[in-house]
């Protein structure tokens, strides 16, 4: 049993503490009297006083931090100003939609990008490679919601094959759920896939130049054997790290795509909480996203150390 993971765990904890400290000071960081800002000019002094107490503004920053962290740890993330429901259950109710969207789009992104990246790396400068390079640059240059709008226009409005927006829980109506997911999943998947193609193509070109690729070809490897069984693994650490970052970031909410396709996920919860100045919800969403990013960062480190045996002895 080694304790090589301890420094990594310590750093993750530090990140979470810093984010918690910043989030619980959000109320103070707003310009002016937060109670006045949140309640408006028409509020009475008694109402404002009550709000200051709820937010802990009548106490010093350290006490506020301790009680905030204590609440988070015990599952009391505060109460939404707008809905009056607990923040934690507000957040958890939005997780399924976002998680489904994000996980499916990652599957699509990888399914498209890995074969394209490997085969264009095998024939650098060839026709496929030129098409793929131009295509990915184009996709990287265009924001994903533009792709989304074009897809809605084409597949939903003109062809009428798929619904343009909305969300039905999978448990209620599987077919309706999936048909509504196709366009947002493609929109997000294509955007992510473009990034993955560029990353994996670069590493695969490098791996193909290595003498071990030459050795495998002389030993009779076909193109697909070479690429899938000998090149993919040594080229994938960068890709895996990117996927983990992307999963972590987008599971915290994909603002644009969720808004565009009217999917009730974390991204839309964040947007509406910001609009309504629903401070407890904003704090909760920020902290939740941070926890996910940190968790996926750790998962990425573990995955990379599994892929490249040389890195197993290095403490992550």
């Amino acid at each position, binding site marked *: 049993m080694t304790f090589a993971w301890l420094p990594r765990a310590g750093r993750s904890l530090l990140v979470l503490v810093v984010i918690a400290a910043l989030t619980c000071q959000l109320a103070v960081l707003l310009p002016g009297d937060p109670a006045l800002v949140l309640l408006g000019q028409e509020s009475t002094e008694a109402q404002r006083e009550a709000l200051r107490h709820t937010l802990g503004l009548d106490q010093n920053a350290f006490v506020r931090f301790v009680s905030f962290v204590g609440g988070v740890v015990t599952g009391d993330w505060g109460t939404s100003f707008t809905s009056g429901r607990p923040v934690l259950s507000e957040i958890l109710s939005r997780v399924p939609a976002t998680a489904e969207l994000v996980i499916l789009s990652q599957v699509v992104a990888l399914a498209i990008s890995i074969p394209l990246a490997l085969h264009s790396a095998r024939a650098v400068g060839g026709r496929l490679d030129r098409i793929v390079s131009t295509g990915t640059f184009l996709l990287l240059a265009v924001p994903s919601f533009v792709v989304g709008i074009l897809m809605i226009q084409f597949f939903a409005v003109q062809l009428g094959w798929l619904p343009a927006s909305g969300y039905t829980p999978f448990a209620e109506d599987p077919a309706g759920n999936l048909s509504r997911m196709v366009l947002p999943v493609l929109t997000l998947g294509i955007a992510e896939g473009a990034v993955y193609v560029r990353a994996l193509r670069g590493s695969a070109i490098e791996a193909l130049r290595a*003498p071990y690729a*030459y050795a*495998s070809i002389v*030993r009779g490897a*076909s193109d697909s054997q070479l690429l899938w069984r*000998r090149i993919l693994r040594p080229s994938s650490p960068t890709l895996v790290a990117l996927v983990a970052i992307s999963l972590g970031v987008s599971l915290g909410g994909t603002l644009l795509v969720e808004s565009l396709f009217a999917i009730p996920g974390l991204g839309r919860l964040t947007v509406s909480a910001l609009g309504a100045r629903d401070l407890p919800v904003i704090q909760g969403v920020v902290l939740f996203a941070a926890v996910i990013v940190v968790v996926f960062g750790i998962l990425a480190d573990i995955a990379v150390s599994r*892929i490249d*045996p*040389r890195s197993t002895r290095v403490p992550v």
Partner: protein
Amino acid sequence: MNREAMKTISSNDLILEVRDLTATVQRHGSERPVIEGVTFSLARGRSLGIVGESGAGKSMLIRSILGVHPPGVTMRVTGEVRLDGHDMLRLRGRERRRALAASVGMIHQDPLRSLNPTIRVGEQLTETLAFTGRSTRRDRAARGVELMRSVGFRNSEDESRRYPHQLSGGQRQRIGIGAAALTEPALIIGDEPTTALDVTVQKRVLDLMQETRERTGSSMLLVTHDLGVAAERCDEIIVMRAGRIVEAGITAEVIAAPSHPYTRALLDSIPRLDGPRLRRLRVPETGALS
């Protein structure tokens, strides 16, 4: 004598026949020759050293014979290459891969970089079987353990499950030799197999190559910049410079009476305990070479 009979004789006697081989690299519309009009042959069971300084085209010659070009480089190869009866410049796809796997075993220059860092050595040693034939994982594992024992690994059972970075330089090159012997190929090619190794390990690796070759009955092409190594290990020698053969012959004759000034310069560059110390390779004027 009819053609059929001629083919039988030539494929029996000669493992490798290279005739008027020319290779050009094409880049941005222009062509640059890297191999020009190279002709030589290698008989069954014999060994041939290809000698020359770096950039002489030795590795390119091997790549052109095998038809495995550097990635991203467009090459045009003309002439004729007959390897163990296969017309290498005309074979395509599956046939070419099978010919390579069955007839060629290759030992590469850099033992670490020529092993895939993410694959266990036992699996790499036997990958030819996985690529070209029907074989089970269990059979390959057993074959790998056996081959590793034959190239001097004592705990080959455990060692076959290691990754390349867990072995020493000499051990890695022994893996390379084991892999080259796997199919008992007609031709073993060593592309600077000892250049990246310690002087003390070099001799052991060369001895092991020789043993392996005797066991499998293979011919050998030994590419090296070290004329001393080639003289010691090869029956015949080819000296290359700037993509051409400048001298060829039986080793003893080439060493005793080098006809080309470049060969003489190479001979003089072999360090000797009793000789004068030269700092640089003394090369005659280029005009004398062409």
